[in-house]
């Protein structure tokens, strides 16, 4: 028993050291510095926050929209996960890759995509106005609650598809068939057999989606407009606009405690239900689409996923290839012409600016940071997931498990300032270090890696390992032939998340960036913040290139599953 604790401690060492230095230390520094600026004592800002009506309204809205968004995301994601888990069909890899692309897109770009599609002079409104001869655009989408919900579903469905879908694909379908043989109907099987078995993955995915929605910033600001504010938006406003650091710190702490509460609740729920399962090879779990009902379901589901997850991106790509002059006057009959001018212009440093980068080098910078993030997040996430999966009930694990999720629920504005005051002087002077960005990205990716790996690792039955050992396998062989085949697939899911999180991340990057080496999202934002057709067109063109690279990157990860490692 003692021995086991020591092993846990050893596994936790690297992840904890990382979190201590790069998360708790900067966060603690900024919170204590901020609160010490309060003239009425450190408790006053908390009292102010709790007593204020407007703060309460913000908290209510934050929780409410996050719950609603999470439910909608599950509503689309779970049937999608079922399709991907149980059926094998042509173009499935491409579909999976495409559904992951939204995750890498910066909010400002996604907003541009939605406005190209659904804006007052977007394609759908213009088409409806022409078709029915309407004087005004019939659909008001931007600056509504609907825009916030749709954007959250757009971003986060891939989490459910990947985390639940991959787990589901290894569940033995014979369990359900046995239940049917015993007289259960379709819904009883779903309710009594499938969902309970899937619940570790569903809870994990729902928790991540909820925390993402709960701390939503860009979507609320850009698509929701000035009538909506989440806690994260309020923290930004208090920090940047009013410089009320004590109140901002109190709100940050509030946001953190909500995240912690959610995570503890999750740990309770999932602690009760997770059990070792006999996972099956996908060869046995997946079938072809045979009956017309199956085909109809697949067709409808694929269409739904593509419409919700890819049309805004396609609208964006379409706009980057057409002259913009034609779009701005819907009454006029100037048809937009095709052009590659924006793409050509991206390759020219017309103003001879020092901070100019070619699109390829911006993508290169993004890919370099993303690779570093994948490596770092896996190195830290693997031992943590391992420790968590071997003994959930150990006191150490029960304390540490919820802590892992905290970085995801932390205000980026607050943590960014924390980095500046805590990590800018010797011995840890990272002000201008290129490591700062992958470190910041790893903080966000780390919980994803752990959550993707833990359900798979828990499902490894200790008996298998024991059997292998008894039969003479060395510990290394056990890992190679027992553990790796089972977690290989989850490992790829984890790597994909780390990769996409890093590529799409904008907030931390813009706060910590070296101007000579902008990532692709930062370069896009620079173009977007300037007036003029060529600037806007280039922003759209660079976004489209980023999108293409992300899709290809994810397809590559799909293919990367080496037969024996990814599959078993």
């Amino acid at each position, binding site marked *: 028993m003692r021995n086991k604790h020591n092993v846990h401690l050893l596994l936790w060492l690297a992840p904890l050291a990382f979190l201590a230095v790069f998360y708790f230390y900067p966060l603690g520094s*900024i919170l204590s*510095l901020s609160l010490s600026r309060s003239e009425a004592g450190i408790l006053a800002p908390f009292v102010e926050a709790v007593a204020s009506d407007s703060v309460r309204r913000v908290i209510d809205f934050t929780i409410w929209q996050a719950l609603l968004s999470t439910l909608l995301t599950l509503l689309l994601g779970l049937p999608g996960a079922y399709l991907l888990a149980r059926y094998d069909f042509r173009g499935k890899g491409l579909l999976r890759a495409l559904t992951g692309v939204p995750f890498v897109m910066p909010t*400002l770009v996604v*907003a*541009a995509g939605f*406005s*190209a599609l659904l*804006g*007052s*002079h*977007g394609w759908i409104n213009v088409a409806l106005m022409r078709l029915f001869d309407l004087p005004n*655009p019939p659909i008001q989408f*931007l600056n509504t609650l609907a825009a916030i919900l749709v954007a959250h579903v757009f971003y986060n469905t891939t989490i459910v598809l990947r985390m639940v879908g991959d787990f589901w694909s290894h569940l033995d379908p014979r369990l359900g068939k046995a239940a049917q043989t015993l007289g259960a109907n379709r819904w009883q099987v779903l309710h009594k057999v499938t969902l309970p078995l899937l619940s570790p993955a569903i809870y994990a995915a729902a928790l991540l989606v909820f925390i993402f929605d709960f701390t939503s910033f860009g979507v609320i*600001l*850009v698509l929701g*407009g*000035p*009538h909506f504010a989440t806690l994260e938006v309020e923290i*930004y*406003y208090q*920090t*940047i*606009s*009013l*410089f009320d650091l004590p109140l901002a710190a109190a709100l940050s702490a509030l946001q953190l405690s909500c995240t912690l509460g959610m995570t503890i609740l999750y740990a309770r729920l999932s602690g009760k239900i997770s059990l070792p399962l006999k996972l099956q090879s996908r060869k046995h779990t997946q079938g072809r689409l045979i009956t017309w009902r199956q085909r109809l379901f697949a067709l409808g589901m694929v269409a739904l996923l593509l419409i919700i997850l890819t049309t805004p991106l396609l609208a964006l790509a379409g706009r980057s290839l057409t*002259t*913009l*002059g034609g*779009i*701005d*006057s819907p*009454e006029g009959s100037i048809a937009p012409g095709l052009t590659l*001018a924006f793409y050509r212009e991206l390759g020219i440093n017309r*103003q*001879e*600016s*020092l*901070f100019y980068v070619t699109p390829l080098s911006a993508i290169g910078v993004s890919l370099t940071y993303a690779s570093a993030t994948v490596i770092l997040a896996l190195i830290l996430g693997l031992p943590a997931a391992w420790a968590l999966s071997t003994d959930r009930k150990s006191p150490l694990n029960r304390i540490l498990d919820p802590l892992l999720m905290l970085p995801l629920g932390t205000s980026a504005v607050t943590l*960014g*300032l924390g980095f*500046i*005051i805590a990590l*800018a002087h010797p011995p840890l002077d990272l002000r*201008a270090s290129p490591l700062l960005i992958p470190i910041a990205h790893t903080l966000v990716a780390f919980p994803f890696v752990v959550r993707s790996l833990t359900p798979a690792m828990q499902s490894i039955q200790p008996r298998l390992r024991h059997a292998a050992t008894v039969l003479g396998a060395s510990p290394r062989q056990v890992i190679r032939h027992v553990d790796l085949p089972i977690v290989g697939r989850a490992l790829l899911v984890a790597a994909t998340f780390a990769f996409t999180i890093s590529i799409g991340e904008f907030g931390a990057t*813009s*706060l910590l*960036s*070296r*101007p*000579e080496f902008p990532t692709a999202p930062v370069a896009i934002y*620079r173009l*977007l*913040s*300037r*007036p*003029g*057709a060529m*600037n*806007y*067109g280039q922003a759209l063109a660079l976004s489209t290139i980023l999108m293409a690279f992300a899709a290809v990157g994810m397809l590559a990860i799909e293919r990367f599953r080496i037969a024996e490692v990814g599959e078993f």
Partner: protein
Amino acid sequence: MYPKIIFHITFYALLFTALAACTPPTTPEPVEVAPAAPQKLTVMTHDSFAISEDVLASFQQEYNIEVQFLEAGDTGSAVNKAALAKGKPLADVFYGVDNTFLSRALDEGIFEAYQSPLLAEIPDDFELDPQHRALPVDYGDVCLNYEVAYFQERNLAPPKNLEDLLKPEYAGLLVVENPATSSPGLAFLFATIGYFGEAGYLDFWQGLVENDVEVVNDWETAYYTEFSQWGGARPIVVSYGSSPPFEMIFAEQPLDEPPTAAVTGAGSCFRQIEFVGILAGAPNRALAEKWVDYMLSPTFQEDIPLQMYVFPVNPNAELDETFEKYLAIPEKPAFLTPADIAARREQWIKDWTETVLR
């Protein structure tokens, strides 16, 4: 063991010296004297900072200084960082605080005074800090912009000043940015306060609400999503006085006239001035002074418009002719002192929010 290591060290040391000797010297001094290693200067900026390669190169060569830039987010984030790092500055120089944040920077004591000799060339209007802790570098006017074609097609006269926006013919035509989240949005709020006074500005905004004004959170959404020039439905937008000439310079096809124009009537624009200063406790004060002087000199000042989309405060800097021709010069831009802004900002934004968003 040891001899081998010593051999390696000597070998690489020799190789390195040989290579270093082979590279052509940067100065035409005698070859035997190796040029001194450049001194390092760190300059912290907001995320809109940009500079031409050759303008930086000429500074680095002239003084043998290597400049490292640190980007610190938008103006507000950058000022906050400088304030939090007070005493242990992150850099030697900080460029990018504007008059809406100036008081925060000065009250927090992040700058050391420096009376640059080049201040003599700069009009006094721009010098808002009499103690010379923050020195003006550039300015930009936040003004209403409108799409020229929209008004021509309808034979409608474009608005000339703020009061015009209340007329029924301009109902539903204006989009503005939220002052709580957007810097031009805040500047436009200040313009209305400067023009109508504290007693009258909320009535004006109430009138705008009744005239169906639209509010969005950021300039990008206002300009590229809602403004009719770029795919929106509203032909009047809060942007910059410089946006029309930039629409010409960055047009898809060469244009004869800018497709947009700025409203410059009395008090309808607000001037944002950006400052540079030496951070208190800067490790390289002497180098920092050279950089500040350089930023105020015509060489750097002439580089400003096409790099950063704002305009030089030094009248000796010559402007591109597109700007000479199309840059709107506001009549009597609205003015508020940085101290007033600092003292009242929160209340103003709260009152505005109550009036316009509730």
